[in-house]
C-alpha cells in the first residue's frame, strides 16, 4: 500500500528513459553527468517530497516557490547584513520556511479556504515579503557579495564514495553531493513517517476520507497544519541547498517551482484526489524531469523542440501510469469475481 505498484511502473519508465539517453545522448552516462543530475535535482526532489503531503490531503501548495525565496532571503540577510554565524542562520531559515508552511495550513483550517486559493494568496504575500526584506535592495553592493560562511557553503560538498568503497579502481564513479544524501535522508524519514507512525496513517485517513477521519477522532486540523508545515520545511531545506550552491539568494528564486514540484509529485503517483501515494514516487518523478532536461540538452536538441518533447514525455509518463492502473483494475475485478 505504501509503495504502490505503480511506483514500480514509474521506476520502469524512469529506467527506460535513462537507458535511452545513456545509449543515444553523448556523455549522458558519465560520472560527471550523474553528479549534475544529483546536485541539480535533489532540491527539486525535496520540494516534491514536501508537496506530496498537501496533495495526499487532497490539497495543494502553490506557495513553495515563494517560501524557497523567503528562506533563501532570510539566510542571505542574516549572513550578509547581520553577520549571524551559519549555525544560527540554518535553523532560522528553516524556521521561517516552516512557519510560512504552518501559516498556509492555519489559513486552510481556520478560515476554511480552498488550499488552492489560500496558497495562491500566500504566494503573493511571501514573494512580497521577500522583495521588502531583500538585502539586495536594502544595501547596495550586497547583490555582488557571495555568502562565504562555511556552515552554509559546506552544504555544497561532494563525497568520493567510489574511492571509499574501492569502486573507483574499476570505473569512474560519480562524487555524491551532500544534497543528494540530504534528499535520501528526508525520503527515508518521511516515507517511514507515512508508513510506521500514527501521524502518517492519519494523513492517509484524512486525505482518503475527511469525514471518516474526523469521526474516528483524528485531529484533522492538526494533521492538516502539520502537512503544510512539512511542505514548508522541505521548501526551506531546498532553499538552503540552493543558497549553498549559488552562494547567494535572489528575489526571483523559486519562481515556477511549485508547478514543477506538483508535476513531479503527480508523475510520482500521488493522486490529486487525495489519500493515495508515497513520497518515494515524487522523488523519482523529480529526477525523471532532470533526466529529460539533461538528456535532451546533451542530445543537442534545440531549446524549443525540448519544450515540445518535455511536454510529450510528461504526457507519456502519466498516460503509461494510467494504462497500468486501468489494466490492474480490470484484473482485480476479474480476480475478485472468480474468487467469490
Amino acid at each position: 500500500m505504501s509503495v504502490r505498484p505503480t511506483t514500480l511502473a514509474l521506476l520502469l519508465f524512469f529506467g527506460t528513459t535513462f537507458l535511452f539517453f545513456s545509449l543515444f545522448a553523448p556523455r549522458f552516462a558519465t560520472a560527471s553527468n550523474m553528479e549534475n543530475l544529483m546536485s541539480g535535482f535533489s532540491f527539486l526532489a525535496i520540494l516534491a517530497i514536501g508537496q506530496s503531503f498537501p496533495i495526499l490531503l487532497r490539497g495543494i501548495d502553490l506557495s513553495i516557490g515563494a517560501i524557497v525565496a523567503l528562506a533563501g532571503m532570510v539566510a542571505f540577510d542574516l549572513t550578509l547584513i547581520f553577520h549571524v554565524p551559519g549555525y544560527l542562520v540554518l535553523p532560522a531559515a528553516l524556521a521561517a520556511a516552516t512557519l510560512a508552511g504552518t501559516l498556509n495550513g492555519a489559513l486552510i483550517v481556520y478560515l476554511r479556504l480552498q488550499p488552492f486559493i489560500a496558497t495562491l494568496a500566500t504566494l503573493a504575500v511571501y514573494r512580497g515579503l521577500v522583495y521588502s526584506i531583500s538585502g539586495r535592495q536594502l544595501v547596495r553592493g550586497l547583490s555582488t557579495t557571495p555568502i562565504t560562511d562555511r556552515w552554509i557553503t559546506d552544504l555544497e560538498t561532494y563525497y568520493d564514495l567510489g574511492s571509499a568503497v574501492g569502486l573507483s579502481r574499476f570505473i569512474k564513479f560519480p562524487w555524491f553531493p551532500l544534497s543528494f544524501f540530504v534528499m535520501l535522508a528526508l525520503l527515508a524519514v518521511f516515507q517511514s513517517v507515512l508508513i510506521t507512525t500514527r501521524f502518517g496513517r492519519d494523513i492517509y485517513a484524512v486525505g482518503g476520507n475527511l469525514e471518516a477521519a474526523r469521526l474516528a477522532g483524528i485531529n484533522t486540523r492538526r494533521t492538516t497544519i502539520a502537512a503544510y508545515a512539512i511542505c514548508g520545511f522541505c521548501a526551506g531545506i531546498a532553499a538552503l541547498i540552493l543558497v549553498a550552491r549559488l552562494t547567494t539568494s535572489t528575489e526571483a528564486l523559486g519562481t515556477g517551482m511549485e508547478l514543477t514540484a506538483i508535476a513531479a509529485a503527480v508523475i510520482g503517483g500521488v493522486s490529486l484526489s487525495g489519500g493515495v501515494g508515497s513520497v518515494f514516487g515524487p522523488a523519482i518523478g523529480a529526477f525523471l524531469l532532470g533526466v529529460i532536461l539533461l538528456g535532451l540538452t546533451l542530445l543537442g536538441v534545440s531549446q524549443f523542440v525540448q519544450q515540445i518533447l518535455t511536454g510529450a514525455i510528461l504526457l507519456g509518463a502519466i498516460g503509461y501510469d494510467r494504462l497500468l492502473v486501468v489494466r490492474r483494475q480490470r484484473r482485480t475485478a476479474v480476480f475478485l469475481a472468480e474468487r467469490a
Partner: protein
Amino acid sequence: MRSHFWDRNGRSHLEETAQTRLNTREEDMTEATTKTNDQRRNFLKGLALGSAAIGGAAAGLFGGIDVTTGSVGVQPARAATNIKMSFIQWQPHTVPAAWSKGIEEVLKTQQVIDYQLLDGQNKVEVQVSLIETLINQGAAAIFLQPIDSVALAPSIAKAKRAGIPVITLNIDATEAHAAHVEMNHYFGAMDIAKALGDAMGGKGEVAILNAPPGIIIRDQRTNGFVDGLKQHHPDIKIVADQVADWDRKKAQDVLNTILVANPNLGGVYGVNDSMALGAVDVAKEKGLVGKLVIFGNDGETDALESIAAGDLTGTQYTDVYQQGRLAAAAATVLATGLVPATAFGQQGHLLMPYVIATKDTVGQIQPSQRW
C-alpha cells in the same frame, strides 16, 4: 551628449570612446563593474580583447575564414572533431536572440564549431544545471547571460577548473572569468536620465515602468536612472515607480493608471523598450505625443522606428549583434588559441559603446545594425 558608434572600420573610435568613458567614470563605478581593483589593467585587457574580437567580427562579416588560427584552420567540418560552444540565455527575448545571431554569424564561418542556444528559463538553478552539463560535454567555450552575478559564480569557477573559458554577456559575475562583454546598464541609464531631464526642461514629474526584482539588470538600470536624475536634474521628481513585468500590455495599463493620479506627468522611463512602447501607445491614445517625454532602454528595431516616427523620445541603443560578434570572436580566439581558462588571473572587460538614440541621431544607425 555626443553620439558615438563605430562602423566596420571604426576601431579607433571605439577605443577612444571606451577610454574616455572609463577614465571619467572610474570613480563612480559601483556594482556595474564590480570588484575590480585595477581598472586600468582590466581596461587594457579589454582593449586587447576588443581588438581581437573586432578582427574576428570583421572576419565574420566578410565571411573570411583565414583569420582563424592554424590549429583549427580550414579543415572540412567533421562531427567527431568539431568543438562545441553554447550560449545560455536568460529567457527567450529579443536581446539574447540578437546576441545569438551575432554569435552564430561569427561561429558558423568557422566550420568546425557546433553552436547551441540553451534556455535558462529565467531560473538561476536551470542556468547552473546547464553550465554543468556543458562542462560535462566538454564545451570549448560558454557564453552566458547570467541572471545573477553571484549565483552563477560557483559554476563559472567550475568551468574554469575544467579549462573552459566563460564569456559573460551583460551581467558580470563575481568570479573572474575569460571575458565580460557588457551593454552598459548603469551609466546608460544615467545618460538616459540626463537626456530625459533635458527634454523635460529640467523639471517636472516622471514615472518609471519597472521590472519585478530578481534580475540584476533591473537594479542597475533603476539605480542608474535615479542617480542620474539626482546628479543632473535634481528638480525632477519621480512620482511613480510601478512594476509592469517587462510587458508592453501591462505597461499600457499601469501608465494609464499612473496618469489618472498624476495628470501632470512629464516623463516616463521604461526599463526596457517594450514597456516604453507601451507608454507610447498610451500617449498616442491620450494625445500626449510630444508632451510626454518617453525613454526606453535596449534599442530594438521597433523602438528605433518609433523614435524616427517621433513617438518615442529616445532609448539607449547598443549594437547587440555586434556585442554577440565580439563575444564570439573572443571565444574563438581563446578556444582556437588553446588558451586554457585557468590561465586567466584577470578577466577581460568590454563595455559596449552605446548611443542615446533620439530623433536627431537615430538615422545614423545602419539598417544592418538594427535588431
